């Protein structure tokens, strides 16, 4: 096993609803060249590429083919990964395995989503297209007015069930979800690469947004964002030669479970707030990183939260606090940028969601925090020695974990 470091991060200049000034490959290349600039490397340094996005959102199949010229990958190995919301981190893990295998020294992970060129709702509904078609043929009522509303009562979606169950299990109230959303909007205001920013956001302001489907309010939900993120990984030897600062990969892990929303064809089993796959992935990552007590050893966390309740729920599932404790930490201000355990100092996915990048941004944000390079005022004041990045995807059942450190792992 080789030590692998993150030595460069590149974002496209802004993460916004619509990048009308650039095409898909142009937007990706902005992030690629930003990463090169940030670490002083050139395309000649790159041994291989991994690529991630969810191509049904733009309607361009396997866009690494179209983008090959624009990401400087010509004549190089490239591997495209797609696992849903987690895609960015899954592609990053793939790059890690490239370097850790001993066969490649420097590998670039390229991720993007340009939601404005497609329809995210159609893309997401596409997960269960055949199931919906079947249920329609079997007499499902799309209005959700009677019988087995397989679509979760109109637009509710499985996520509302998860949030309800989380509140029930934790003892938290909807006001805690409001407060969490507000905290992340405020953090986002300090991150130049965030989308929904509100420096004055309060729980009351979020509470005033319409209820979409209990307990999910409009203010709890992520936006659809255009954006691209690039990360450069290197072996210890290469990092020593070229990088002034690096964040070291201590562990990567992932786990899947069953799809848990409204799939009448397969039946559904687990409570969507149980997230057993997250617990398993975290346990494996801690073992690999030699972490015995994550509550004490992890200094900073980036959680994939398409919806604000997930920040709190996953803090518990990742073992970073006891069950029912996350909303107490929030109340005590421990998860603020200057708190004991800063959580989503970047503003999280709930503030910025260009899906292919979202799980990678969790990793790059942890890396920048370790390197002390987070821009725009969201660098945390405390020294970050170990940070955890979490990704969530699939149909609520898939989780990825990455643990980074400020020095190579002591084996």
């Amino acid at each position: 096993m080789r030590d692998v470091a993150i030595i460069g991060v590149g974002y496209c200049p802004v993460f916004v609803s619509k990048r009308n000034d650039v095409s898909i490959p142009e937007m990706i290349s902005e992030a690629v060249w930003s990463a090169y600039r940030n670490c002083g490397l050139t395309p000649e340094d790159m041994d291989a590429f991994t690529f991630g996005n969810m191509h049904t959102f733009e309607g361009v199949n396997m866009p690494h083919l179209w983008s090959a010229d624009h990401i400087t990958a010509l004549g190089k190995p490239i591997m495209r990964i797609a696992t849903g919301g987690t895609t960015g981190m899954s592609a990053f893990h793939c790059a890690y395995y490239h370097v850790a295998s001993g066969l490649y020294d420097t590998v670039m992970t390229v991720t993007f989503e340009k939601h404005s060129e497609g329809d995210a709702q159609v893309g997401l509904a596409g997960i269960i297209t055949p199931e919906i078609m079947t249920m329609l043929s079997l007499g499902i009522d799309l209005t959700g007015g009677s019988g087995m509303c397989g679509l979760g009562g109109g637009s509710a979606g499985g996520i509302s069930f998860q949030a309800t169950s989380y509140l029930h299990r934790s003892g938290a109230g909807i006001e805690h979800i409001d407060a969490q959303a507000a905290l992340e909007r405020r953090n986002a205001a300090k991150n130049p690469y965030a989308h929904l920013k509100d420096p004055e956001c309060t729980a009351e302001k979020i509470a005033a947004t319409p209820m979409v489907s209990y307990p999910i309010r409009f203010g709890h939900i992520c936006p659809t964002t255009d954006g691209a993120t690039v990360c450069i990984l290197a072996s210890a030897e290469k990092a020593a030669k070229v990088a002034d600062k690096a964040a070291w990969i201590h562990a990567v892990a992932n786990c899947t479970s069953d799809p848990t929303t409204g799939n009448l064809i397969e039946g559904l089993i687990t409570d969507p707030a149980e997230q057993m796959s997250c617990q398993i992935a975290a346990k494996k990552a801690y073992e690999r990183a030699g972490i015995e007590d994550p509550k004490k050893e992890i200094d900073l966390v980036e959680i994939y939260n398409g919806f604000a309740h997930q920040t709190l729920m996953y803090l518990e599932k990742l073992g970073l606090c006891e069950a029912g404790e996350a909303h107490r930490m929030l109340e005590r201000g421990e998860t603020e940028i200057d708190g004991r355990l800063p959580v989503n100092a970047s503003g999280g996915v709930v503030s910025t969601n260009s899906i292919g990048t979202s799980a990678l941004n969790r990793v790059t944000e942890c890396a920048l925090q370790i390197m002390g390079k987070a821009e725009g005022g969201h660098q945390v004041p405390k020294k970050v020695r170990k940070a955890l990045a979490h990704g969530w995807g699939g149909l609520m059942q898939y989780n990825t974990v990455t643990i980074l450190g400020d020095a190579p792992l002591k084996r």
Partner: protein
Amino acid sequence: MDDKVAIVGIEYSQGDDLGLTRERLCFRTVRGVLDKLGIDRHAIDCFILASNDFLEGRTISNVFEDGPVGAYLKDETKVEMDGINAVVYGALRILEGNYDTAMVIAHSLCGHQVSPYLQVQYSLDPTYDRQLGLLNELSGAALQARAYLRSRGLDEGWLDRAAAAALANGAANDMVTRSLDGADESKVASSSYLYEPLREMHCYPPTDGACAIVLASAGRARELTDRPVWIRGFGSSIDSYYFAGRDLTRSASAADAARRAFAMAGISDPASEIGLAEVSDLFAYQAPLLAASMGLADADEAPRRFAEGGFGKDARLALNPSGGALSAHPVCATGAVRVAEAFRQLRGEAGAVQAGEPRLALAHGQDGLCLQQNTVVVLGI
């Protein structure tokens, strides 16, 4: 690469219409390889899927495959490319050191579910090529076929003979469940034009298929089988999307992918060292083009020799004794099937299509228009 990563088991099927749902196809294929090895799903450390959401008609299409492939509460990821890349990823995982076994599952239901050309259509630049409407997988291949014929001084009749040679191999292969008997030169020549000079039987058939491959670390491999097939090397490379700027009479990225794989395998003279090559030839002109690009055959001699059956199972280099992708192309699984075919050839288990006793074999997979992206794996026994 010496004995570090092995393939210990395979299971695959391909045909016009396997008459299954994709869930049952995945389940059957995985269950098959587990039973062959006498292990259960808990013996697998990670699952690497290869499929394509555009072919499946659904987003995050692996969501409902995790159950049937046995990945429930396990480590699973998906390579959305040809399945041979999932084999490479599995090897990388094992080389890293945390995994002793990896299950690769590649599949698609192109035979009955969807027009396979659609997925290539949707990979094109939506702001220009898709608007113009002239370019698609078949028209691109026709342009490349024309360029290749001209560069090698071949006529259209050569395409008929090359296709007939490939399909004759496929007819003999019990792992291709299509009726190919009697697909001779005249039958190929009388099939209708799709894009001139390409006729229907010069082009791959829409195919259902799935392929499961179990990889293992050296120590674990010897526990699971007494005949592991070792991964000696691999490489991949990508050309420009803008194929008007490429030399279409060869494949630079296939050459580069092979060069990388040979370097890793310590092969200096591939033409004499490789005894068997399984390439993903989606169109009748591609097998000799690829073999020449990868340094397995002379560029001038390869096309005529291929059409005359000179790369048959008794030749020094057997090229696609399985019938290749021209006989069955389950998109996404095709490259993995090439690995599986090489596996059984190296173990002497290929039955009617067994090509002597090869010691070193090459498997190839591709994605994109006109051979844009290529991956090569070298296997040895």
